[in-house]
């Protein structure tokens, strides 16, 4: 009887459930091997393929970032592209205008995003549910307009020509022959670090506070949880993680544009989390990977049949509708844990 209703909380390890540390090292070795092969045999792994892997990892970082808000805190945010964009623009501006080191620009971007997170978090104290979604969306759009209208930020065209970062004096693009290897390793380490962090926080005092706020704010306050503090904290954590991804994005693409702030990006990040499975570390990473690879695959169909439109954009919507009907908790989400939006 007991086992039937038992909730399997906190059984998974930090990296992909099984044995976290072992999985981490196996994956790391795998990536290094790929880089090594690529180094010895030119273009053993096509550049395009590497590009997709980098994007998967980048999106995984973003999804893990949003997971703090849309997973643990149970708030839907349509504004996380803001933090991604702030990270990217901070890195771009610092590299272009001050000639600062890339690695220094990452924490600066994180701090900038954390500051931007405060007003958004404070509005989540006053406004809930669907209204909060609207606010986050509007927040993101406003940032986009600011970027478009500020000449120093490059306006509509954005900023281009960002230098690649150096690793011990070597350009990151030179690390593994083709220019993606270094980013692959860097982003893999980032995903791992954020996963470990998430896993540790989930079962800490802070994590329990997030859970409590999601389940019932008034009861949480009665338990002595300062919801103002923890909502701001969650938003800041979330923002800094997304900003980190933004910094790498800026260097990787060697340019930034206002499109980084587009609502399409925000929606994309949100669907990684929702389709993958809220609150599941493995889920959001795989969700990001799935939703990065699938469109690439469908792009190739478009080219194959020389269609005039992109079938992915339409299928994407249908996938969301079907998913909500059939499996609302996401592919890898814990069953029965609906991040129930409080009715506004």
């Amino acid at each position, binding site marked *: 009887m007991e086992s039937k209703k038992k909730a399997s909380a906190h059984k998974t390890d930090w990296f992909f459930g099984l044995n976290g540390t072992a999985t981490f090292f196996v994956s790391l070795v795998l990536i290094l091997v790929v880089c090594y092969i690529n180094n010895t045999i030119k273009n053993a792994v096509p550049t395009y393929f590497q590009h997709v892997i980098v994007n998967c990892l980048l999106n995984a970082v973003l999804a893990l970032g949003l997971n703090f808000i849309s997973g643990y805190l149970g708030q*839907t945010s349509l504004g996380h592209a803001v933090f991604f964009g702030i990270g990217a623009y901070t890195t771009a501006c610092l590299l272009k205008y001050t000639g600062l080191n890339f690695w220094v620009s990452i924490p600066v971007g994180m701090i900038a995003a954390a500051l931007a997170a405060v007003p958004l978090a404070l*509005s989540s104290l*006053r*406004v809930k*549910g*669907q*209204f909060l*979604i*609207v*606010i986050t*969306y*509007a*927040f993101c*759009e*406003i940032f986009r*307009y*600011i970027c*478009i*209208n500020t000449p120093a930020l490059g306006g509509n065209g954005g900023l281009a020509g960002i230098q690649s970062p150096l690793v011990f004096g070597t350009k990151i693009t030179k690390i593994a022959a083709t220019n993606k290897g270094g980013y692959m390793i860097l982003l893999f380490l980032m995903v791992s670090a954020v996963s470990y962090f998430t896993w540790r926080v989930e079962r800490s005092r802070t994590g329990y506070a997030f859970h409590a706020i999601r389940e019932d704010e*008034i009861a949480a306050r009665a338990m002595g949880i300062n919801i103002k503090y923890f909502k701001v904290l969650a938003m800041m954590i979330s923002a800094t993680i997304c900003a980190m991804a933004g910094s790498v994005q800026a260097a990787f693409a060697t340019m930034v544009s206002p499109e980084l702030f587009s*609502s399409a990006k925000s*929606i994309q990040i*949100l*669907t990684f989390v*929702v389709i993958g499975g809220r609150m599941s570390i493995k889920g959001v990473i795989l969700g990001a990977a799935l939703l990065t690879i699938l469109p690439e695959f469908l792009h190739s169909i478009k080219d194959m049949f020389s269609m*005039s*439109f*992109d079938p992915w*954009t*339409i299928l*994407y*919507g*249908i*996938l*969301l*509708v079907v*998913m*909500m*009907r059939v499996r*609302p908790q996401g592919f890898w989400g814990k069953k029965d844990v*609906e*991040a*129930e*939006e409080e*009715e*506004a």
Partner: protein
Amino acid sequence: MVDFLQQVINGLAQGGIYSLIAIGWTTVFGIVGIINWTHGEIYMLGAYAGWLITTYAHLPIIPSLLLSMVLGAFIAMAVDEIGYRPLRKKGVLAATGFITALGLSQTIRYSASAGFSPNPKAYPVLVNQELITLVSIGDKKITISSVHLIVLFSAVVIMSLLELFMKKTLTGKAMLAASQDMQTLRLMGVNAESLIKITFAISGALGAAAGFFIGMLYYINPMMGALAGLKGWSCAILGGIGSIAGSLVGGIILGIVENLTAGYISTGYKDAIGFMVMILVLLIRPSGLMGYRFEEKV
């Protein structure tokens, strides 16, 4: 001063269109309790319906408008049938409705883009563009374009008819009651499902009308739904959710403010102003200008 008044007048027609969109949002929110994120897409489809009718069937303005409104109503009902009703039945609308709506609008938007091509389209000339002088002060004149005047007038007429429908007919009264308490209404034997369908139909018809009017003023494209939809929502929030008069006022205010922003600050920030207004209203006075507030019971 004259310039200022001219800017205000120029914003009126756009404001009327925002009002129509806003009412579509607010009626559905009041009765079904969700923000219908597909509303902007219904508006876009309404504009395309109007474009098809006027370009290919060569119908005059009033029948074209009515026809696109009917189409809009059916599209909105279809959206409810496919997207929301199954979730409502399962009782998980609040948690999953938003993602569903997101998916639906994505599908509608890109299907339209595939079907109508992403290139902007223009309506044929339905009314002659003339500048009508309202007042002349010295050698300066305050004018309004005939198209603007017709759009504004029609928008106000449609809203008055809706107000009349809500106040005078039994269905309208039931809808007003439903926005207060759906549960009680169900217990009193009102068929909630059909009421919801009617709500969606009205919302869709108004959205399509707004789309038709925008087509008379500007080029239309398949991506225009997202921004306009959200602006409509800003107006609904500004005016106070659940209030038709509020939506009208909110829409007109936003139309004028946008024009003034473009005229006196920067055209670049014209579209952003609506969002700023919305955030401020939600944070400072969530009930808007004419709405009521909700409180949670402990």
